[in-house]
């Protein structure tokens, strides 16, 4: 995988497999401390400590019983190669939080990539899930909630052509505005 956004998509798929109703995806870029942090938290079925230990190790999970597979070990390796780490907090019946951090300026850090594309894919493919997306760059924040949008749309599906165009624009604008305002602050 060449983008952090693709890893986010992959981790969020685990939340869906765990039967989550509410998934929060958070991406924080902190240029002062040179960190990039990504978090996926869900209210899915959760894992016991033994399972948590297992999902980070690709050689212990066996194919038939696996729940997560290669996705988590790949991301963990990518983070550790950039002075970062991957942590999983989970409780059976409560949910799971996967948190991964990188040294933002590290030469091996993958680019963030197409965040809007990842979110749109998750949202349209799983409209029954309540999505919260928080993107923060040095204190500037963009928050996206799927719930109010679904309440307005009611029986009109997200795949309605104009709704799709609207969602794409909303996400792309929100993300680029946060990035732009930080760049402006830098310039002044």
């Amino acid at each position, binding site marked *: 995988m060449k983008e952090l956004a693709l890893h986010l*998509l992959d981790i969020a798929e685990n939340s869906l497999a765990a039967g989550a109703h509410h998934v929060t995806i958070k991406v924080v870029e902190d240029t002062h401390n040179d960190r990039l942090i990504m978090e996926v938290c869900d209210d899915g079925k959760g894992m016991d400590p033994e399972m948590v230990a297992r999902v980070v190790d690709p050689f212990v999970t066996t194919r038939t019983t696996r729940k997560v597979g290669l996705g988590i070990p790949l991301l963990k390796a990518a983070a550790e190669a950039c002075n970062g780490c991957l942590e999983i907090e989970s409780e059976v019946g409560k949910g799971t939080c996967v948190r991964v951090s990188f040294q933002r300026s590290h030469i091996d850090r993958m680019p963030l990539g197409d965040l809007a594309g990842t979110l749109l894919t998750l949202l349209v493919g799983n409209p029954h899930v309540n999505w919260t997306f928080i993107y923060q760059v040095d204190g500037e924040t963009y928050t996206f909630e799927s719930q109010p949008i679904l309440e307005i749309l009611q029986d*009109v599906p997200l*795949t309605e*052509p104009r*709704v*799709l165009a609207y969602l794409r624009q909303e996400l792309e604008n929100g993300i680029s505005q946060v990035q732009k305002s930080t760049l402006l602050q830098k310039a002044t």
Partner: protein
Amino acid sequence: MPTIKSLDDLKRIREEALAKRKAKTTSGQVQITVAMGTCGIAAGARDTMKAILETIAEKNLEGIIVTQTGCIGLCEREPIVQITVGDQPKVTYGKVTPEVARRILEEHVLKGQVVQDHVVPL
């Protein structure tokens, strides 16, 4: 905050969509499923999904449901897309790049012609 204004836009889009729906009868629901396991994502499933959504928006295709699923055990054929048109049997496509996805929408969904060279026999 631009959010409130944009939610008003959304309300308008909804009303227009409902008005349009009344004006014409939908012919046979189309369901598109994109496999989004780690294997699919690594093979480019998100860009395939993106191409499908873009084509729906560009060509103004109504009555299409797009969903996603996990790994279906055909990792070497990813990205995989399954299409069900109305009552017809489900067709599974493999190696669906964004270009192939656009072709499938154009030929299969719009004209009813299955794109034979990408069908995965199950």
